[in-house]
């Protein structure tokens, strides 16, 4: 989502037009996901990825021609795409069209789109306040928002009173308690001879 936001940092738009651009990106994301979900089995096996990129490039060009939205708006859509979108492991042919799985999948995509639009509007709001009300010059450039994002990320990683220190979180993520370090476990295994 952060990568998808990067093009928005350099748009010379005001609050309203940024919101419209974010809305357009989200609607196009939903259209693309729906289109390729239902038509991917009709493409010859190898050409699906090429068709997907051609689709993105053509729409980037068409929208650029029509609305003067900068051509790199398509990067936001590309980075918002689900990772497993075009992999061979996902086989929609085995899923019924109106089954719960499909509903869940599209619900997740819808949530991702709404979340992205909200994220863009929130950061634009922060930029407006920082630039116009507080008069901070850094917010006229991407630097101000990068600073805000890094500060939020730093605070998120170091939450006080969360009941866990950072080392405990790392141990929990590795799946090994302090009494069973993975290296010691490996050493205890019998060797070949």
């Amino acid at each position: 989502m952060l990568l998808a936001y990067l093009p928005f940092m350099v748009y010379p738009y005001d609050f309203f037009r940024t919101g419209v651009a974010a809305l357009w990106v989200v609607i196009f994301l939903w259209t693309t996901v729906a289109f390729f979900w239902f038509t991917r089995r009709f493409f010859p096996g190898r050409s699906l990825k090429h068709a997907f990129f051609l689709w993105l490039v053509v729409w980037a060009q068409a929208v650029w021609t029509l609305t003067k939205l900068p051509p790199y708006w398509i990067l936001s859509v590309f980075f918002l795409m689900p990772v497993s979108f075009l992999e061979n492991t996902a086989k929609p042919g085995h899923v019924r069209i109106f089954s719960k799985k499909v509903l869940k999948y599209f619900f997740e995509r819808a949530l991702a789109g709404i979340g992205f639009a909200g994220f863009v509007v929130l950061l634009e709001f922060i930029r407006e306040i920082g630039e116009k009300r507080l008069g901070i010059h850094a917010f006229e450039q991407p630097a101000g928002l990068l600073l805000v994002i890094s500060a939020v990320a730093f605070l998120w990683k170091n939450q006080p009173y969360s009941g866990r220190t950072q080392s405990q979180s790392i141990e929990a993520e590795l799946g090994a308690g302090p009494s069973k370090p993975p290296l010691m476990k490996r050493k205890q295994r019998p060797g070949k001879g």
Partner: protein
Amino acid sequence: MNIKRLVVATAKYLFLVLFLCLLAAILYAAQLLRR
């Protein structure tokens, strides 16, 4: 069996051609609407 496979493959390539036509139509329509 072979005929079915052949028909499916042909239909897929036809679909690809249709898809490319759709993309060309999108670009053409954008150019027309711009004027």
